[in-house]
Protein backbone atom coordinates (compact mmCIF):
# COMPACT_ATOMS: atom_id res chain seq x y z
CA UNK A 1 0.00 0.00 0.00
CA UNK A 2 1.29 3.50 -0.76
CA UNK A 3 2.41 5.37 2.24
CA UNK A 4 0.91 8.88 2.36
CA UNK A 5 3.78 10.05 4.49
CA UNK A 6 6.26 9.06 1.85
CA UNK A 7 4.27 10.94 -0.78
CA UNK A 8 4.23 14.05 1.38
CA UNK A 9 7.94 13.69 1.86
CA UNK A 10 8.35 14.09 -1.88
CA UNK A 11 7.40 17.74 -1.45
CA UNK A 12 9.67 18.46 1.44
CA UNK A 13 13.05 19.76 0.54
CA UNK A 14 11.84 21.32 -2.68
CA UNK A 15 13.53 24.68 -3.20
CA UNK A 16 10.25 26.53 -3.61
CA UNK A 17 11.86 29.83 -2.71
CA UNK A 18 14.45 29.44 -5.43
CA UNK A 19 12.00 28.07 -7.94
CA UNK A 20 9.66 31.02 -7.63
CA UNK A 21 11.99 33.77 -6.46
CA UNK A 22 14.79 33.23 -8.96
CA UNK A 23 12.74 34.00 -12.09
CA UNK A 24 11.29 37.10 -10.45
CA UNK A 25 14.71 38.31 -9.43
CA UNK A 26 15.99 37.64 -12.95
CA UNK A 27 13.11 39.65 -14.39
CA UNK A 28 13.80 42.54 -12.02
CA UNK A 29 17.49 42.50 -12.94
CA UNK A 30 16.61 42.42 -16.64
CA UNK A 31 14.31 45.40 -16.15
CA UNK A 32 17.04 47.31 -14.38
CA UNK A 33 19.52 46.50 -17.11
CA UNK A 34 17.13 47.56 -19.85
CA UNK A 35 16.32 50.83 -18.08
CA UNK A 36 20.02 51.55 -17.64
CA UNK A 37 20.69 50.91 -21.31
CA UNK A 38 17.92 53.29 -22.30
CA UNK A 39 19.09 56.00 -19.95
CA UNK A 40 22.61 55.68 -21.34
CA UNK A 41 21.23 55.91 -24.85
CA UNK A 42 19.28 59.07 -24.02
CA UNK A 43 22.20 60.77 -22.33
CA UNK A 44 24.78 59.80 -24.93
CA UNK A 45 22.75 60.15 -28.12
CA UNK A 46 20.15 62.81 -27.40
CA UNK A 47 22.22 65.15 -25.25
CA UNK A 48 25.61 66.68 -25.48
CA UNK A 49 27.79 67.87 -22.70
CA UNK A 50 27.71 71.52 -21.81
CA UNK A 51 30.13 73.79 -23.59
CA UNK A 52 33.63 73.43 -22.32
CA UNK A 53 33.27 69.98 -20.90
CA UNK A 54 34.35 68.33 -24.11
CA UNK A 55 32.42 65.15 -23.87
CA UNK A 56 29.31 63.37 -22.84
CA UNK A 57 30.73 61.19 -20.13
CA UNK A 58 32.33 61.78 -16.84
CA UNK A 59 31.75 63.73 -13.71
CA UNK A 60 32.37 67.09 -15.40
CA UNK A 61 29.41 66.62 -17.70
CA UNK A 62 27.19 65.39 -14.91
CA UNK A 63 28.09 68.40 -12.85
CA UNK A 64 27.66 70.88 -15.68
CA UNK A 65 24.42 69.39 -16.99
CA UNK A 66 23.33 68.15 -20.34
CA UNK A 67 22.29 70.17 -23.31
CA UNK A 68 19.77 68.64 -25.69
CA UNK A 69 20.76 68.09 -29.28
CA UNK A 70 18.36 70.06 -31.45
CA UNK A 71 16.91 69.05 -34.78
CA UNK A 72 15.78 71.61 -37.32
CA UNK A 73 12.34 71.13 -38.78
CA UNK A 74 10.73 73.19 -41.52
CA UNK A 75 7.16 74.19 -40.83
CA UNK A 76 5.03 75.19 -43.78
CA UNK A 77 1.73 76.96 -43.17
CA UNK A 78 -0.78 78.33 -45.59
CA UNK A 79 -1.58 81.94 -44.85
CA UNK A 80 -4.18 84.02 -46.61
CA UNK A 81 -2.89 87.42 -47.67
CA UNK A 82 -5.48 89.97 -46.63
CA UNK A 83 -4.61 92.28 -49.49
CA UNK A 84 -4.66 89.84 -52.35
CA UNK A 85 -6.87 87.25 -50.59
CA UNK A 86 -4.63 84.55 -51.93
CA UNK A 87 -3.32 81.49 -50.23
CA UNK A 88 0.37 81.83 -49.60
CA UNK A 89 2.65 79.22 -48.04
CA UNK A 90 4.99 80.47 -45.38
CA UNK A 91 7.92 78.39 -44.25
CA UNK A 92 9.34 78.71 -40.79
CA UNK A 93 12.04 76.79 -39.01
CA UNK A 94 11.64 75.29 -35.64
CA UNK A 95 14.13 73.52 -33.48
CA UNK A 96 12.96 70.42 -31.74
CA UNK A 97 14.97 68.40 -29.28
CA UNK A 98 16.16 65.16 -30.78
CA UNK A 99 14.72 63.39 -27.75
CA UNK A 100 11.20 64.36 -28.85
CA UNK A 101 11.64 62.72 -32.26
CA UNK A 102 12.96 59.36 -31.12
CA UNK A 103 10.36 56.62 -30.66
CA UNK A 104 11.48 55.99 -27.14
CA UNK A 105 9.70 53.26 -25.37
CA UNK A 106 10.13 51.85 -22.00
CA UNK A 107 10.72 48.22 -22.80
CA UNK A 108 10.52 46.06 -19.76
CA UNK A 109 9.45 42.69 -18.52
CA UNK A 110 5.80 43.25 -17.76
CA UNK A 111 4.63 39.71 -17.10
CA UNK A 112 6.26 36.76 -15.42
CA UNK A 113 4.42 33.51 -14.92
CA UNK A 114 5.89 30.75 -12.84
CA UNK A 115 3.96 27.53 -12.93
CA UNK A 116 5.17 24.68 -10.87
CA UNK A 117 3.24 21.47 -10.92
CA UNK A 118 4.31 18.36 -9.15
CA UNK A 119 2.30 15.24 -9.12
CA UNK A 120 3.16 12.13 -7.23
CA UNK A 121 1.04 9.14 -7.95
CA UNK A 122 1.21 5.92 -6.14
CA UNK A 123 -1.13 3.01 -6.52
CA UNK A 124 -1.03 -0.64 -5.68
CA UNK A 125 -3.27 -3.57 -6.23
CA UNK A 126 -3.10 -7.14 -5.22
CA UNK A 127 -5.06 -9.93 -6.74
CA UNK A 128 -5.08 -13.38 -5.44
CA UNK A 129 -6.86 -16.14 -7.19
CA UNK A 130 -6.87 -19.57 -5.89
CA UNK A 131 -8.96 -22.47 -6.92
CA UNK A 132 -8.89 -26.05 -6.01
CA UNK A 133 -10.37 -28.58 -8.26
CA UNK A 134 -9.97 -32.12 -7.57
CA UNK A 135 -10.30 -34.41 -10.41
CA UNK A 136 -8.36 -37.47 -9.70
CA UNK A 137 -8.26 -40.05 -12.29
CA UNK A 138 -7.32 -43.56 -11.90
CA UNK A 139 -8.81 -46.32 -13.78
CA UNK A 140 -8.85 -49.99 -13.46
CA UNK A 141 -10.95 -52.80 -14.73
CA UNK A 142 -11.50 -56.15 -13.46
CA UNK A 143 -13.62 -58.99 -14.58
CA UNK A 144 -14.29 -62.41 -13.32
CA UNK A 145 -16.61 -65.22 -14.00
CA UNK A 146 -17.69 -68.59 -12.63
CA UNK A 147 -19.78 -71.39 -13.92
CA UNK A 148 -21.87 -73.47 -11.66
CA UNK A 149 -23.67 -75.97 -13.68
CA UNK A 150 -26.20 -74.30 -15.71
CA UNK A 151 -25.45 -70.98 -13.97
CA UNK A 152 -22.70 -68.67 -14.96
CA UNK A 153 -21.64 -65.47 -13.24
CA UNK A 154 -19.66 -62.74 -14.84
CA UNK A 155 -18.50 -59.65 -12.87
CA UNK A 156 -16.74 -56.62 -14.34
CA UNK A 157 -15.99 -53.09 -12.98
CA UNK A 158 -14.00 -49.95 -13.49
CA UNK A 159 -12.89 -47.05 -11.31
CA UNK A 160 -11.36 -43.69 -12.19
CA UNK A 161 -10.24 -40.53 -10.29
CA UNK A 162 -8.47 -37.23 -11.28
CA UNK A 163 -7.12 -34.25 -9.34
CA UNK A 164 -6.23 -30.67 -10.55
CA UNK A 165 -4.99 -27.90 -8.36
CA UNK A 166 -4.84 -24.31 -9.70
CA UNK A 167 -3.50 -21.30 -7.92
CA UNK A 168 -2.65 -17.78 -9.13
CA UNK A 169 -1.35 -14.78 -7.22
CA UNK A 170 -1.09 -11.36 -8.95
CA UNK A 171 0.48 -8.36 -7.34
CA UNK A 172 0.58 -5.01 -9.02
CA UNK A 173 2.23 -1.84 -7.75
CA UNK A 174 2.53 1.32 -9.76
CA UNK A 175 4.28 4.55 -8.87
CA UNK A 176 4.72 7.58 -11.04
CA UNK A 177 6.13 11.02 -10.38
CA UNK A 178 5.56 14.01 -12.56
CA UNK A 179 7.08 17.41 -12.13
CA UNK A 180 6.78 20.31 -14.54
CA UNK A 181 8.29 23.73 -14.11
CA UNK A 182 7.21 26.35 -16.59
CA UNK A 183 8.40 29.92 -16.61
CA UNK A 184 7.03 32.34 -19.15
CA UNK A 185 8.46 35.82 -19.32
CA UNK A 186 6.98 38.50 -21.52
CA UNK A 187 8.63 41.78 -22.25
CA UNK A 188 6.40 44.55 -23.44
CA UNK A 189 6.30 48.26 -23.78
CA UNK A 190 5.42 50.22 -20.73
CA UNK A 191 4.43 53.86 -20.67
CA UNK A 192 7.38 56.19 -20.48
CA UNK A 193 8.35 57.15 -16.97
CA UNK A 194 6.70 60.40 -15.85
CA UNK A 195 10.08 62.13 -15.65
CA UNK A 196 10.95 61.50 -19.29
CA UNK A 197 7.41 62.35 -20.38
CA UNK A 198 7.59 65.64 -18.52
CA UNK A 199 10.90 66.56 -20.15
CA UNK A 200 9.61 65.75 -23.63
CA UNK A 201 6.38 67.61 -22.97
CA UNK A 202 8.27 70.65 -21.73
CA UNK A 203 10.40 70.67 -24.85
CA UNK A 204 7.37 70.21 -27.09
CA UNK A 205 5.45 73.00 -25.42
CA UNK A 206 8.27 75.45 -25.98
CA UNK A 207 8.52 74.99 -29.69
CA UNK A 208 8.12 78.39 -31.27
CA UNK A 209 8.33 78.85 -35.02
CA UNK A 210 10.94 81.21 -36.36
CA UNK A 211 10.18 82.58 -39.74
CA UNK A 212 12.92 82.23 -42.32
CA UNK A 213 13.92 85.56 -43.74
CA UNK A 214 14.22 84.34 -47.32
CA UNK A 215 12.63 86.15 -50.21
CA UNK A 216 9.73 83.99 -51.27
CA UNK A 217 8.70 82.85 -47.85
CA UNK A 218 7.82 86.28 -46.51
Amino acid at each position, binding site marked *: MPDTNSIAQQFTGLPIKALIGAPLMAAAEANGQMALEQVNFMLNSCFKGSAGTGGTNGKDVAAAGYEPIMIT*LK*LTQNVIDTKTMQNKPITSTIEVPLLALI*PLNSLAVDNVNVNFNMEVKSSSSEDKNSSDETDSKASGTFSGGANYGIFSVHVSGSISASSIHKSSDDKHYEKSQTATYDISVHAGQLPLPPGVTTIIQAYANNISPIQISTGDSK
Partner: protein
Amino acid sequence: MMVSLLCPACRAANILIEPMSLMQGSGFNCPTCKAQIKMGEESVPVYQKCMQEFDVLAQKISR
Protein backbone atom coordinates in the same frame (compact mmCIF):
# COMPACT_ATOMS: atom_id res chain seq x y z
CA MET B 1 6.67 53.22 -34.32
CA MET B 2 5.18 56.66 -34.56
CA VAL B 3 6.22 59.75 -32.71
CA SER B 4 3.74 62.45 -31.89
CA LEU B 5 4.70 66.09 -31.75
CA LEU B 6 2.48 68.93 -30.66
CA CYS B 7 1.77 71.07 -33.69
CA PRO B 8 3.97 74.18 -33.35
CA ALA B 9 1.54 76.22 -35.42
CA CYS B 10 -1.85 75.69 -33.82
CA ARG B 11 -0.88 73.78 -30.69
CA ALA B 12 -4.23 72.13 -30.88
CA ALA B 13 -3.31 68.68 -32.11
CA ASN B 14 -0.44 66.29 -32.33
CA ILE B 15 1.30 65.60 -35.59
CA LEU B 16 2.06 61.92 -36.01
CA ILE B 17 5.50 61.35 -37.43
CA GLU B 18 7.05 58.22 -38.79
CA PRO B 19 10.78 58.59 -38.04
CA MET B 20 12.13 56.74 -41.06
CA SER B 21 9.92 58.68 -43.47
CA LEU B 22 10.84 61.94 -41.78
CA MET B 23 14.48 61.10 -42.27
CA GLN B 24 13.86 60.40 -45.96
CA GLY B 25 12.30 63.80 -46.50
CA SER B 26 8.58 63.11 -46.13
CA GLY B 27 6.34 65.79 -44.72
CA PHE B 28 3.71 65.30 -42.04
CA ASN B 29 0.60 67.39 -41.68
CA CYS B 30 -1.25 68.60 -38.66
CA PRO B 31 -4.76 67.13 -38.70
CA THR B 32 -6.21 70.42 -37.46
CA CYS B 33 -4.44 73.30 -39.19
CA LYS B 34 -2.85 71.30 -42.02
CA ALA B 35 0.55 72.79 -41.34
CA GLN B 36 3.33 70.58 -42.61
CA ILE B 37 6.64 69.78 -41.02
CA LYS B 38 9.71 68.37 -42.73
CA MET B 39 13.18 67.73 -41.51
CA GLY B 40 15.82 70.28 -42.34
CA GLU B 41 18.53 68.79 -44.51
CA GLU B 42 21.27 69.82 -42.12
CA SER B 43 19.71 67.72 -39.35
CA VAL B 44 19.37 64.51 -41.33
CA PRO B 45 22.85 63.11 -40.49
CA VAL B 46 22.37 63.80 -36.77
CA TYR B 47 18.95 62.19 -36.75
CA GLN B 48 20.15 59.26 -38.86
CA LYS B 49 23.02 58.56 -36.49
CA CYS B 50 20.73 58.67 -33.48
CA MET B 51 18.20 56.34 -35.10
CA GLN B 52 20.96 53.86 -35.92
CA GLU B 53 22.05 53.89 -32.31
CA PHE B 54 18.44 53.46 -31.28
CA ASP B 55 18.12 50.40 -33.53
CA VAL B 56 21.23 48.91 -31.94
CA LEU B 57 19.71 49.50 -28.52
CA ALA B 58 16.40 47.93 -29.54
CA GLN B 59 18.16 44.85 -30.90
CA LYS B 60 20.28 44.59 -27.79
CA ILE B 61 17.25 44.78 -25.54
CA SER B 62 15.23 42.32 -27.57
CA ARG B 63 18.01 39.76 -27.21
